[in-house]
């Protein structure tokens, strides 16, 4: 597994030098509404770029038990089920992503979650970096 593979999309992730990820979004200047993912043609007059909060609580979840069709799925042919969920990031926005850091039956609604960088293997064998949410160490 590589240390830090290229991001799966330059407009998705901000990665600090130490690998700490942040999700890129925009805030509509007029209404304050957050938009994720940011539209590629977001007019800077109307939208300002922001990083979303990294911490939140699990809003809902499920497990993807069969390999999705390709395209659009770009993962390995050999398939391992993975968890996905929505995480409410503070009082900002609810974001969908892969879940990691616990067994597939180890997730529950309201669990504290934190954004992490997640290596993703393409069918070609190359690696990319995407994002996921993992249970926070402090669940109190």
């Amino acid at each position, binding site marked *: 597994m590589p240390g830090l593979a290229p991001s799966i999309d330059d407009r998705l992730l901000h990665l600090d030098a130490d690998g700490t990820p942040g999700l890129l979004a925009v805030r509509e200047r007029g209404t304050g509404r957050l938009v994720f993912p940011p539209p590629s043609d977001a007019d800077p007059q109307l939208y300002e770029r922001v990083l979303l909060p990294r911490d939140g609580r699990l809003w809902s979840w499920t497990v993807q*038990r069969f390999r999705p069709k390709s395209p*659009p799925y770009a993962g390995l042919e050999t398939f391992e089920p993975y968890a996905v969920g929505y995480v409410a990031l503070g009082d900002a926005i609810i974001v969908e992503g892969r879940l990691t850091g616990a067994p597939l039956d180890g997730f529950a609604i309201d669990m504290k979650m934190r954004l992490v960088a997640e290596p993703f293997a393409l069918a070609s064998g190359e690696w990319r970096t995407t994002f996921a949410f993992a249970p926070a160490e402090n669940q109190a």
Partner: protein
Amino acid sequence: MSGVYIVGAGIHPFGRTPERSGLQQGVVAVRQALGRAGLDWRDIQFAYGGSDAAGKADTMVFELGLTGLPFINVANGCATGGSAMFGAYSTIKSGEFDLGIAVGFDKHPRGAFDPKPAEWGLPDWYGETGLMLTTQFFAMKIQRYMAMYGITNGTLAAVAEKAFANGVLADHAWRREPVDAETILGSTMVSDPLTKFMFCSPGEGAVALILASETKAKQLGLPAARLRAAAVRSRPPGSFEVFSPALDIDRGPSPTNIASHAAYDMAGVGPEDIDVAQLQDTESGAEIMHMAENGFCADGEQEAWIAEGRTRIGGTLPVNTDGGCLACGEPIGASGLRQVYENYVQLTGQAGARQVPGDPRIGYSHVYGAPGVSAVAIVERA
């Protein structure tokens, strides 16, 4: 403005028919509707029709006859059938024509749908990393609903068990074998908490409805149901829909909530007046949530309703009397019209072994689909 009546209906059996294209299944449904009503294609003044993935509806004039009628193709995703009926309804209501047809058909390959991110205005990573699946959306919507309102896995299974039991009694259904709750719960997990038998499958089928003005309906003297409301609504802010990389923190109503309200207003009736309902059941949980979203019960009351058998044929509000999408499959362009077909058959007393007892008077149908659209129709025995 004229009242609008359904005076005839035809259906091509749902499921898999390798020897016929989707379009040909549409032609079969139209011919059956005409035959049952004793009408000729030349009597039909206009048509609305469509499919999501099986071709252009208006090309069926080559088989049905080149009468020169206006034939409007409808392509509106999961609401294609509902939109075709809405078009036909509005055309007759306006007085422009007094006899027309709404037809919907489809034919999908096996397995889950495989949407392309760009076609939905989404970045490629969303599909590449395995987040773009309708099954995940349905699973996560019911997962949260179960946690909030105390719905159990047993209730999910009971909904599917009822669907298959009703499908046994419906000639046009795809799945015609009963499946018990234990088997449903023990079948392959697709997307937690939903198992294989709790999901409908993309399939094939076709439905045609003949609509007439009040004057024309009286002239024809056929078994009829008055279409008291037909409403199509897209999503309001804060609704939870398929293929959403993010949701607003401020949650709002669903397209079903607003289509339902609009339909009750148009019809001048409320949920307590409905005798039989066909509700979108893409999976077991959808039927449960749609009972509340359409106003039939409060959130959480489904647990008791289903335990008491209130939604079975013979219950206080029979739901999905032909087995719904779970037993019939989901050919997108035909699915919404199948629900109206079923209500027409129920209200005119032609439902045979699955007939709802007690002379049902008012039927309700609700179709829901991506990317957040609902169509509701309310029909009354004429």
